[in-house]
C-alpha cells in the first residue's frame, strides 16, 4: 500500500487504575487500516480487544485511565492529542461505533426518530423535520420494513435484530469513514446474526467505509475480515491476512484456539484443548503471557517478553520459537 493508511495505531498501551495500582489492559498494540478495508480483532475475555476499540475514540473514563505510550493516527491527526471538542466531531461523524447490546446503547424513552435525529442535528445541523425524513431513509437503508411507521417506535417495541439495525442506522447517519463494530452480533441468534453480517457487508460496499470488527467468534471473523489481529492477555499475538491466518496459524495460541472450536462438519470424540485458564488481568506474567498454557514453551519464553516478528509474507507472530522454525 503506497497511500497513507486511514488509521494507524502504534505501540499503544492503556492502563486502568485499580485498588492495587495501575493495571495494564493492553500493551504495545499496533496495526493499520486502509480506506475501505476490513480488520477483524479476535480474542477471548480479557484479551484487550474491546479496550483497544474504545481507546480509538478515547471512550475510557479519563480519571481512571492513562495511556503511557502510543499514537493513534486517523486521517493524518493523532487522536490521542486532539482537544475534546475536535474529538467530539470525529466521534459519530468520521468514526462511528456499534456495540454488542443495542438495548443498553439505545435510550428507552426516546423514539427511533429522536435518536437518529440527535446524531444528525449534532453533526449536520438538520432541523427536526429534515432529521426525521433522513431517519426514514436510513431505516430503509438498514432494511427495516415499513420505515415510515417504525421511525416512531420506541426501542422496546423492536426485536433484538431490529434494534441492532437501528444502531447501525445511527452509526452510518453521517457516512463515517470508519465503523468500529464491537461484538455486533454476539447477543443475536444465528439466523439474525447472518442478516446483520449481510447488512454490514452491503453497507460497507455501498458507502466505501473501513470496518473494524471485534469478535470472540473465529467463524464471524473468518467470514467478515480481510485482515485479522489475534489478541491474548492484552497483546497482539498474531497478525495476518485472514486466508493466511486460517490456513497457517503460527502462534500456538491461535492454532490452539482454532482446534478447540468444535467442527460443524465432522463428528469428534474429544476436542483438542488449551490447558489452564485465561489469566486474571491483575496477575503479572513474566515473559510470554501465553507461556504458562503453552505446550511448546521453552525456558526463555517464561523470562523474556517476545516481540511481534515476521513469520511469513505480511504475517507477524509473537512467538520466537515458531518464528525460528518458520525461517
Amino acid at each position: 500500500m503506497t497511500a497513507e493508511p486511514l488509521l494507524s495505531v502504534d505501540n499503544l498501551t492503556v492502563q486502568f487504575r485499580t485498588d492495587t495500582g495501575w493495571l495494564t489492559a493492553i500493551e504495545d498494540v499496533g496495526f493499520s487500516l486502509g480506506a475501505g478495508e476490513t480488520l477483524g480483532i479476535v480474542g477471548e475475555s480479557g484479551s484487550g480487544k474491546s479496550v483497544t476499540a474504545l481507546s480509538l475514540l478515547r471512550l475510557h473514563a479519563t480519571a481512571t485511565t492513562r495511556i503511557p505510550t502510543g499514537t493513534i493516527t486517523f486521517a493524518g491527526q493523532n487522536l490521542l492529542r486532539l482537544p475534546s471538542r475536535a474529538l467530539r466531531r470525529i466521534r459519530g461523524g468520521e468514526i462511528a461505533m456499534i456495540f454488542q447490546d443495542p438495548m443498553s446503547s439505545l435510550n428507552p424513552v426516546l423514539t427511533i426518530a429522536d435518536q437518529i435525529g440527535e446524531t444528525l442535528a449534532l453533526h449536520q445541523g438538520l432541523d427536526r423535520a429534515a432529521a426525521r425524513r433522513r431517519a426514514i431513509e436510513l431505516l430503509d437503508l438498514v432494511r427495516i420494513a415499513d420505515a415510515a411507521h417504525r421511525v416512531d417506535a420506541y426501542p422496546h417495541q423492536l426485536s433484538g435484530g431490529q434494534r441492532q439495525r437501528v444502531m447501525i442506522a445511527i452509526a452510518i447517519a453521517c457516512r463515517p469513514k470508519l465503523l468500529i463494530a464491537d461484538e455486533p452480533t454476539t447477543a443475536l441468534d444465528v439466523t439474525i446474526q447472518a442478516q446483520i453480517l449481510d447488512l454490514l457487508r452491503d453497507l460497507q460496499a455501498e458507502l466505501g467505509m473501513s470496518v473494524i470488527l471485534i469478535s470472540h467468534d473465529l467463524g464471524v471473523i473468518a467470514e467478515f475480515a480481510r485482515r485479522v489481529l489475534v489478541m491474548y492477555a492484552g497483546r497482539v499475538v498474531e497478525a495476518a491476512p485472514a486466508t493466511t491466518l486460517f490456513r497457517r496459524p503460527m502462534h500456538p495460541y491461535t492454532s490452539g484456539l482454532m482446534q478447540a472450536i468444535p467442527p460443524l462438519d465432522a463428528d469428534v470424540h474429544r476436542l483438542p484443548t488449551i490447558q489452564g485458564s485465561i489469566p486474571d488481568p491483575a496477575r503479572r506474567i513474566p515473559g510470554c503471557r501465553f507461556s504458562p498454557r503453552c505446550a511448546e514453551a521453552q525456558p526463555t519464553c517464561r523470562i523474556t517478553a517476545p516481540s511481534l516478528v515476521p513469520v511469513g509474507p505480511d504475517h507477524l507472530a509473537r512467538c520466537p520459537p515458531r518464528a525460528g522454525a518458520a525461517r
Partner: protein
Amino acid sequence: MTAPVVAVQNLVKDFATAPGRVLRAVNGVTFEIAPGETLGLVGESGSGKSTTGRMLAGLIPATTGTVTLFGQTITGPHGPAHLAAVRHRMQFVFQDPNGSLNPRMRVRDAIAEPLDIKGHIARPDRTARIAELLDMVGLPQAAADRYPHEFSGGQRQRIGIARALALQPDFIVADEPVSALDVSMQAQIVNLLLDLQQNLGIAILFIAHDLAVVRSMSHNVAVMYAGALVEIAPRAALYAAPQHPYTRALLDAVPRPDPNRTRPRALAGEVPSMLNRPPGCPFAARCPLAMPQCHDTQPPLREIAPAHQAACHAI
C-alpha cells in the same frame, strides 16, 4: 429395546401473560432418550428448548402432555409423588455457574449439599465423596475449602457439574452449560462431559444454541423452532442430510472458521410472535418451500428415514 430414561409425549406449555392472553412456549413436543445417550436440543431464542428442559426435570408443570421419567409419569394428578420418587436420579446443570452457586458456601458444601438433603451421610463418607467428585471433574483437592468467586467461569462450571454428579444420577439436563464460556474453556468442559458420560453411562439432555457444540456432544439431535419440534435425527444424519428447511437455514447461517467459504444469504424475517400464534407451520412465513397448506395446518412430525423425523408438508 431398553426402556427410555425419559419420554415426553405431546408436551405443551402455556404461559398466561395477561388476562386472556396466552403465550404458547412449547407446542406439542414428543421425544425420548435412551439410557446413556445424549439428545441435543437446539434452537434459537424463544424456541422453547429451555422450557422443555424445565418441564422434563419437573421444575415447572406442563400444561398438557406427559413426561415419563424412569417409568414414572411425573405430569398429571399423581405427578408430584412420582417425581419425588425419582428426583434424585435426575440432576440439572445451569448455564450460569455464578447464578447457580451460593457465593457464601464453600465448594465442599456446595458439592455435598445434594447428599445432605437426601439424608444422613456419615462424616468420613461425605469427605471421601467430595474428594472423589473433585477428582472426577478435574479440580484440585484444595478447591474444597475455597469459595466460588475464587474460580474462573470454567472452573465454576466444573463445580456445578460435580454437584450434579453427587447423587450418581442416571440423567442430567444441561441447559446451555458452555454458552457463557470462552472457546478455550468450552472445549475443556465439553470433553469433561463426554468423559463422564462414557465412564458413568449417564443420559443427557443437552440444550444449546450452538450447533457445533451440540454436534460434538450428542448422539441424537432435535431442532426446535417457535415452540415446535421440527426435526429429530441421529447426529450424522441431521448434519449431513438436514431435511427441514429451518434446519438447513440454521446450518447455513453458522459462520465457519474458513475465509474461503461463501455463506448463503441470510434467511429473511424473524421468529413469529408466540402470542396468538397463527395456525399452520410456525416457519411458513420465512420458508422458501412454503405452500398454501403450510399456512393452514401445522405439519405433524413424521418419519422420513429410519430414526429421522421431520415436521414439514413440503418434504
